[in-house]
């Protein structure tokens, strides 16, 4: 592998982490969705680059799936959901941008240390790739933990899944079946969550998960 190929792969994976960071501090839902679309687009690019580098044509399929489903269909669908729920003007109080960003930086550092320590035998590209993928997963989890709105939790979950796809393509020889099944499971999760969003909304007039907690608190 030439150093240029390595650098580009590195750049794309790094951009994915950067996009995750951008999602961390978006407090408007539309903006969050737009960044998510960018996130998925970068993922598609990164996977396509891996396909080119590894001479693995089936990865192009994965890239296409990522582009069509994650960068287009899911953001558009979520846009419509937000519009129909009428929450596009809601501003989410994130815990505090500075604190969240610091936590995110810590997580990235942690995933670097972990990955560099546990994979000394693997080749350099896979190591870097896995470290970035783990950062993306952890950042996705962080988004889920710090948000209160159910829609943004869904977006956090989707970005987490992007991290998984990145990890899967970085490792050579991952069969296509696995990737397709992961993509489909995410799609199904998305549908289920979408339905749930409307059910929650129907019952509580809000998709703020605190409403659920209040409800449980009363029943206890």
């Amino acid at each position, binding site marked *: 592998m030439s150093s240029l190929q390595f650098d580009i792969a590195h750049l794309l994976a790094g951009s994915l982490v950067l996009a995750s960071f951008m999602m961390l501090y978006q407090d408007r839902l539309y903006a969050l969705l737009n960044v998510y679309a960018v996130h998925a687009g970068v993922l598609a690019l990164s996977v396509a680059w891996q396909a080119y580098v590894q001479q693995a044509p089936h990865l192009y399929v994965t890239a296409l799936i990522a582009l069509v489903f994650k960068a287009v269909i899911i953001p558009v669908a979520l846009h419509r959901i937000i519009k129909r729920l009428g929450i596009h003007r809601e501003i989410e109080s994130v815990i505090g941008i500075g604190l969240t960003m610091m936590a995110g930086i810590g997580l990235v550092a*942690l995933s670097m240390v*972990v990955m560099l320590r*546990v994979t000394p035998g693997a080749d350099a590209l896979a190591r870097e790739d896995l470290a970035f993928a783990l950062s993306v997963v952890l950042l996705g*989890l962080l988004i889920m*933990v710090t948000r209160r709105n159910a829609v943004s939790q869904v977006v956090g979950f989707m970005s987490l899944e992007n991290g998984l796809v990145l990890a899967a393509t970085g490792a050579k020889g991952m069969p296509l079946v696995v990737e397709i099944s992961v993509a489909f499971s995410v799609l199904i999760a998305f549908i289920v969550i979408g339905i749930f969003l409307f059910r929650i909304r129907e019952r509580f007039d809000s998709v703020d998960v605190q409403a659920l*907690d209040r409800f*449980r608190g009363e029943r206890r």
Partner: protein
Amino acid sequence: MIAVALWSVAALLALVPAGIVLSTRPRGSIILYGGCLIATSTLCVTALSDLLYFPHLAPSATLPIGLPWLGAHFRLDALSAFFLVVVNLGGAAASLFALGYGQHEDSPGRVLPFYPAYLAGMNVVVLANDAFSFLVAWEFMSLTSWALVVSHHREAENVRAGYVYLLMASFGTLALLLAFGLLASGAGYDFDAIRASHPSAALTGMVVILVLLGAGSKAGLVPLHAWLPLAHPAAPSHVSGLMSGVMTKVAVYGFVRIVFDLLPEPVWWWSMVVLLVGGPTATLGVLYALMQRDIKRVLAYSTIENIGIIFTGLGLALAFKAEGLDWVAALAFTAAMLHVFNHALFKSLLFFGAGAVLAATGERDMEKLGGLIHRMPKTAFAVLVGCVAISALPPFNGFVSEWLTFQAILLSPQLPSWGLKLIIPAVGGLLALAAAFAAACFVKLYGISFLGRPRSDVAASARETDRFSLTAMLVLAAFCLVAGILPALFIDALAPVSKDMVGNIMPHQVGLQWLTIVPIAESRSSYNGLLVFLFAALCGTAAASAIHRLASDRLRRAPAWDCGYPDPNLAIQYSASSFSQPIRRVFGSVIFAAREIGEMPPPSSPLPARLRVELHDLIWDALYAPIAKAIGFATDRINILQFLTIRRYLTLVFVALIVLLLVVAL
């Protein structure tokens, strides 16, 4: 041989779905118990012929079930054959008894499907030749017996019994699982591979302790006995008989199989542990039994005593084997195995008797019984035989096995190690005490329940039980007598087992004059049950006929002597509590923290004065109650986790992940 055995087990399992169907039919229980009787009899005869004629053949079989790369291994060596005889003799007797007794069952759907499954489970434990099949069958046996324990689930007491039993059974299986895990670490799960491996001394020591915990909790060794007196009486009586008479023996089998067979040569301290548990178990078990008023509970506690005797025998065998005295080890081991057989006989018999009394009167409380010998003479006779046998009186079988155990104890001065030399006589003392208490206990059980005058209307109107139940009891009583007067046959039949397990056998007994048994040498000791029996029978008949001939043989009825009190109240008879009061006063104040509280009503109050007796199970208070309290405390604290918000759960997962990653990173 083994094919016949496995097919019979399969037949038992096939009876399980039949039991579900049959439980709704009016005559269903007869068909089901008849099927069980046939299957267990086949197994019993197969195993017996294997033990007597082909003990060294040890056929094995592998079935393609269980773990995919392992399969299920079965083997029928002498030890398995002997325990199969015990299990299926008890099973056949219980099935025969249940042909009559099962008709009294109110909810047969809760008993019939589980009964054959339970029998099959016990058989598979004994036949299994790999750790996986053994543990699965063991747990199957535990679960089916648990289902039978809670079959009368409307009574709160039974539900509690089932709960405690389930907990202790899980604990026991866990201990066995760990033991097999340690054993299999070097060899794999197949018993043949484990036998061939050479585990280290530390590992075998841990295995012995774990097996003692696992098999001991199922057998009822003190202090792991707490579930036994709750669970055994709660089941229907024929199942109680099986649990006490047979399932505890399956636990003994587990212990013998692992410690004597799978592990390498014993070390002296193993025997120390076993003896220090076995002796106190015997004495404490029977002391508990003496304090009880419930017939089935007395019997359950007495099972603990007998398990103590068996484990003492096994401990002696380990001690002598570890010190190289093979021939004494064979004596102690044979004594223990003989007691296994004997106890299965008379404990089943006594539980059946208790079941017959329960069916006739609806009472288990001795204070409400009495005078049953007039109403149920045949049952009374069978139970009398059982009581004499379990009290270890000649010429019945209990005496033989306990006497042999004492013969081994008397040889303890030949041991080189001082620790064992000091401990074994002390354990012998405990056993002697237990034997005396057992006699008192069964005099009380028989005297209060069957003699005297009825203490309640139900006892006064009891009816003799049905002929199936009577046949089962009388057959067992006959076995007790035969094993008592012809012990030589049984000792010789056990020779291959002893040869396999301790590497030596007792001297051959059959062929000695008058069927005497001579465990060591004629100059030391010998016993002849046949002569004792003939002498006792002759003397008794002669005395009775002499009295009838020479004195008046007319039947006379006169008022019973009432200690000078003219009150005709039936409560003035000896009661179960008053019979055991002296022993309670001497031992109970220390062992049970017993207190007698006299409650005097204030003057001019019409209330009667009352004497209340308070007994505490100190082992329960000191060992089980704190554990239960600690677990309750912890679960109360952890319970908060059930009511967190979604975000908190997510955060918990997240934090856990971060912590684990940090552990990896640092």
